[in-house]
């Protein structure tokens, strides 16, 4: 309960570090404050011990704050980060948020700004320790639907999983309709429940929505859960003779795919779906290229590498990382660059689901 949060403050100016330390010491959560005079020191300290929050100045010599934050976001994705700067250029705000920082703040120049800054920092620290509304995200979709139905609510849940979108209509605590891709009703509901992750938002109720689901929410949820268990069981049974072949094979059935290579970062092995004459060399190239451009992104402060697309006379290829898996996907050379990009998004969304 009385565990004090730990803040790491990074700035190359010792005077400023001292001043921030004093300011932050006023926080109600009484945080432990550690300081680092350079980007390299920040990386080393984060490797050595866990922190709850990093407050990083952007303008530092050698490794600037954006470079530090790019590395930190990749290596410690759960760490809360605040970019602090005296720069007025809005480009840095966009870039900092593109890196995934929690807060971008111009260095406080008045008492009132300092007060607001402290409130934001306290709120960030609080979000780390308190359950609150954040806990909602750790609930499964089934929990959320049950909560809505038990409380007799009326709402529309929109669930997105990368490119896939689904909607569930709830009226007066009853499941009324669902929609996902081309599916409607219970089939759509089951499809949405099969997605492993995603975001949801509550939209206003639509009382005029025609009803396609007529059974109680409990019956539909139970049947969906059983169907899901059975399909997972089937995959496991197949996997006993051919480990993890099914999910990759599913990806390779997408239109335009010539091959799919899946690799785990830091491991030598790979899985391949569909014919590929030289998977070792292709996997080695994909790994090296992803790593090379990841590091280049850090040096440029451009943010985490999203995707690489290569276009050639024989075939196109796209490289990306999703859920701790690196993908190298070969595409037919008849596809345009936009089509490769769209299909790659779809493929990654399928993998995520």
């Amino acid at each position, binding site marked *: 309960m009385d565990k004090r949060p730990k803040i790491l403050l990074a700035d*190359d*100016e010792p005077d*400023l570090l001292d001043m921030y330390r004093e300011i932050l010491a006023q926080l109600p959560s009484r945080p432990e404050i550690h300081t680092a005079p350079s980007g390299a020191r920040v990386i080393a300290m984060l490797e050595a011990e866990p922190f709850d929050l990093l407050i990083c100045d*952007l*303008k530092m*010599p050698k490794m*600037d*704050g*954006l470079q530090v934050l790019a590395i930190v976001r990749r290596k410690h994705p759960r760490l809360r980060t605040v970019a602090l*700067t*005296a*720069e007025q*250029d809005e*480009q*840095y705000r*966009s*870039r900092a*948020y*593109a*890196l*995934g920082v*929690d807060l*971008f703040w111009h*260095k406080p*120049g*008045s008492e009132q700004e300092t007060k607001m800054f402290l409130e934001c920092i306290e709120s960030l620290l609080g*979000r780390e320790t308190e359950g609150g509304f*954040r806990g909602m995200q750790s609930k499964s979709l089934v929990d959320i639907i049950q909560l809505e139905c038990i409380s007799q609510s009326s709402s529309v849940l929109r669930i997105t999983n990368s490119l896939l979108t689904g909607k569930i209509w709830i009226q007066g605590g009853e499941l009324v309709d669902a929609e996902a891709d081309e599916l409607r009703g219970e089939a759509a509901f089951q499809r949405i429940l099969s997605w492993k992750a995603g*975001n949801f938002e509550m939209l206003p109720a639509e009382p005029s929505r025609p009803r396609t689901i007529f059974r109680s929410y409990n019956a539909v949820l139970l049947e969906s859960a059983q169907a899901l268990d059975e399909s997972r069981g089937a995959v496991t049974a197949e996997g006993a003779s051919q480990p993890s072949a099914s999910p990759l094979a599913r990806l390779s059935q997408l239109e335009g795919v010539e091959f799919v290579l899946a690799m785990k970062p830091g491991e030598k092995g790979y899985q391949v779906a569909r014919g590929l*004459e*030289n998977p070792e*060399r*292709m996997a*080695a*190239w994909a790994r*090296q*290229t992803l790593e*090379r*451009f990841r590091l*280049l*992104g850090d*040096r*440029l*402060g*451009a*943010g*985490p*590498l*999203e*995707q*690489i*697309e*290569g*276009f*050639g*006379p*024989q*075939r196109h*290829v796209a490289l990306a990382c999703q859920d701790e898996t690196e993908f190298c996907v070969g595409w037919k050379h008849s596809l345009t*660059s936009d089509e490769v990009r769209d299909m790659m998004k779809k493929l990654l969304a399928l993998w995520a689901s």
Partner: protein
Amino acid sequence: MGLLNFFAKPAPALLRLPSGSFTVDREGAVLTGTLPSSFPAGLIKDISLQVRTAFGEAAKAQLPLAELIINYPSLKICARELRGGAIVFLSPKAPSSPASQS
């Protein structure tokens, strides 16, 4: 307001993501470019090295490529192969919005 002056410090300016292009030959020498002179030459060399290596290694893996597009949240690098060298386009992107998924 005096506090603001106190925060100003003479550290080197932050790196701005450049918009422009440059060409390099197969040896890595920059032939032409429209990038601002403030963009460090070392980073141009770094980009060209990574791009040329990616093209070269892809060809060795029997995957000849004519174009590479590298996407970061705030920058897009588009490189076209030119007989062992490359023409590289850099375009900063405006991120859509603060992604606060917490």
